[in-house]
C-alpha cells in the first residue's frame, strides 16, 4: 500500500514535517505543488491529517487504568466448506409457528418452528435467536437445542446443542443441521465446543467452523470475512450471491417466496454476484435484465426471466 514514493508515505512525511515546525515559504510552495499535482495526493494528505488526529487518542494509553484487551487466539484451518450445504435442502412453505410444550424432564421449553419465513426472536438484551426457513429449535431454560435447519444464536455464556455437538458461546454462532450433517460457525466472539469426553473442549474464534458428518468425522476449517458475510446474509433478509448461476439463485429465492422465479434456458447458466433482498425476487429479475438483457414476464405465481 505505502511504498517510499507512494502518496500515503509522502503525505506522512509532510504531516510530520509540519508537526516539527512551521514550513518555510519554499516548503509551503512545494507542498502546494505536490498536493495540486494529483487528486490522489490531496486525498492522501487529508487522510494523513486525519490519521495524525486519530492517533491523538493514543494519549489515553498512558493511563494505568487502561485495560489491555484479552487476546483470544484465532486459528486457520485447511478446508473451506461448500456454501451450498447451507442452501441445499429446504423447500418453501408459508409461515412459522411457535409452540410451548413441556419436555420429558418436566422443564418448560419453547419450540420455535419455521416453514417459509425467517423468524427473529429477541429473547433478552444480548440474546438473540434467528431461524431460517424450515427450521426447528427448542429453547430450554438452560440451553438451546437445534433440531433441524439453520439458525443463528447469540448470547453470553449460552449453551447450544445439536445432536452431537455442544457449544458454550460468547458471541454469535451459525448452526446447521440435517440428517447427515451438523455444523457450527462462530460469527462473532468465541465459543467452546465439547469433544468426545467431557474434559475435552476447544475454543473456536470468529470465522472458525466445526462440522460433523454422519459417520462421526469432525472437521475444522476457517472462513474469511467475506464468506461469513455471505453465509449470514439471510439473517438480515438478504441473499448474497457469489457467482452462482441464475438457476441456483432462483432456487434460493423460491425457498422464501410464493412467487417463483423461472429463468429461461438461455439465461439459466449465467452467473451473477451481488447482494439482494430475499423477499424481492422481482428486483433480482430486474437486475438480471439490466445486466444480461432479456425480458421479464409475470403471472400470478411466476416471474419468467427470458
Amino acid at each position, binding site marked *: 500500500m505505502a511504498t517510499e514514493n507512494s502518496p500515503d508515505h509522502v503525505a506522512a512525511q509532510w504531516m510530520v514535517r509540519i508537526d516539527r515546525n512551521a514550513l518555510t515559504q519554499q516548503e509551503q510552495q512545494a507542498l502546494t505543488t505536490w498536493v495540486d499535482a494529483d487528486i490522489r495526493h490531496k486525498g492522501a494528505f487529508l487522510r494523513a491529517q486525519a490519521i495524525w*488526529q486519530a492517533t491523538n487518542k493514543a494519549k489515553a494509553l498512558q493511563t494505568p487504568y487502561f485495560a489491555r484487551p484479552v487476546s483470544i487466539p484465532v486459528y486457520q484451518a485447511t478446508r473451506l466448506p461448500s456454501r451450498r450445504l447451507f442452501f441445499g435442502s429446504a423447500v418453501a412453505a408459508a409461515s412459522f409457528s411457535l409452540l410451548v410444550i413441556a419436555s420429558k424432564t418436566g422443564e418448560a421449553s419453547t419450540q420455535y418452528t419455521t416453514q417459509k419465513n425467517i423468524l427473529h426472536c429477541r429473547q433478552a438484551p444480548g440474546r438473540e435467536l434467528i431461524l431460517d426457513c424450515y427450521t426447528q429449535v427448542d429453547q430450554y431454560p438452560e440451553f438451546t437445542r437445534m433440531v433441524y435447519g439453520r439458525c443463528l444464536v447469540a448470547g453470553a455464556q449460552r449453551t447450544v446443542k445439536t445432536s452431537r455437538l455442544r457449544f458454550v458461546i460468547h458471541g454469535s454462532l451459525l448452526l446447521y443441521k440435517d440428517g447427515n450433517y451438523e455444523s457450527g460457525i462462530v460469527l462473532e466472539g468465541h465459543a467452546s465446543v465439547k469433544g468426545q469426553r467431557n474434559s475435552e473442549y476447544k475454543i473456536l474464534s470468529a470465522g472458525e467452523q466445526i462440522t460433523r458428518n454422519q459417520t462421526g468425522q469432525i472437521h475444522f476449517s476457517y472462513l474469511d470475512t467475506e464468506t461469513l458475510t455471505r453465509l449470514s446474509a439471510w439473517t438480515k433478509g438478504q441473499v448474497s450471491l457469489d457467482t452462482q448461476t441464475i438457476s441456483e439463485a432462483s432456487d434460493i429465492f423460491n425457498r422464501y417466496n410464493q412467487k417463483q422465479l423461472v429463468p429461461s434456458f438461455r439465461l439459466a447458466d449465467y452467473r451473477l454476484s451481488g447482494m439482494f433482498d430475499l423477499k424481492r425476487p422481482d428486483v433480482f429479475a430486474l437486475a438480471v435484465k439490466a445486466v444480461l438483457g432479456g425480458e421479464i414476464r409475470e403471472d400470478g405465481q411466476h416471474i419468467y426471466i427470458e
Partner: protein
Amino acid sequence: MLADQERGYWLAKHIVPNEHLIRTWLTRFSDIEADDIIQEGYVIISEADVGKIFNPIGYFHTICRNLVLRHYRKAQVVSVTAIADILNDTLVDQTPSIEDTIDARAELRFLDQIIQELPDTCRKVFIYRKIKDYPQKECARKLGISENSVEKQLARALTLIARSYGQRDSDQRKKVGLVRGNRKFS
C-alpha cells in the same frame, strides 16, 4: 491548509476507524486500485457539509461506490460481476450501518495493538511524541538521536499506522493463519 482542524477531527473520528469496511468492499473489484478510490473519497467527503451527514461511513461508502461506478463507465471492458455489485438502484443497500462502526474502546485497543507492533525505534519515537506529548526536538534529546531521525521515524510510524487502519480485517486474517496447525483435539 486543506482541511480545517475540525474537519480533520471529524474524519479521524468517523472515517479513519471504519475505513477498512470500505476497503474490504473494494477488494471485490479486482481491477480497481483501492488506494485511488479511498484517496479520492477523502477529497470528496472533506468538501461535504459534514454537519448534515447522519451516517458518515455510509456516506463515504456511497462516495466510493460512485467513484467505482465512474471508473467502470470509463472502462472499455466491464465484468458482469462488477456491474452487478454496484447497480445502485437494483441491489439492496450494502451501506455499513452506524451499528457496524467501531466503538471508541475497540478503537483504543486497536491503536494500542498497532503501536506495539511498530519497529522498536519507530515505536519509541511515536510514544514520546504522541503519547508523552514531547515536541520532536525534545524526543530527539531524550532518545539521543537527531531531529531528522525523529522526523523520519515518525513519518514511518504514521505510514505503518495508516496501513494498519486500511488493512484492519485482512491483518487479523493473516495473523490467524499460522496458529491452527497441529493442535490436537483435546
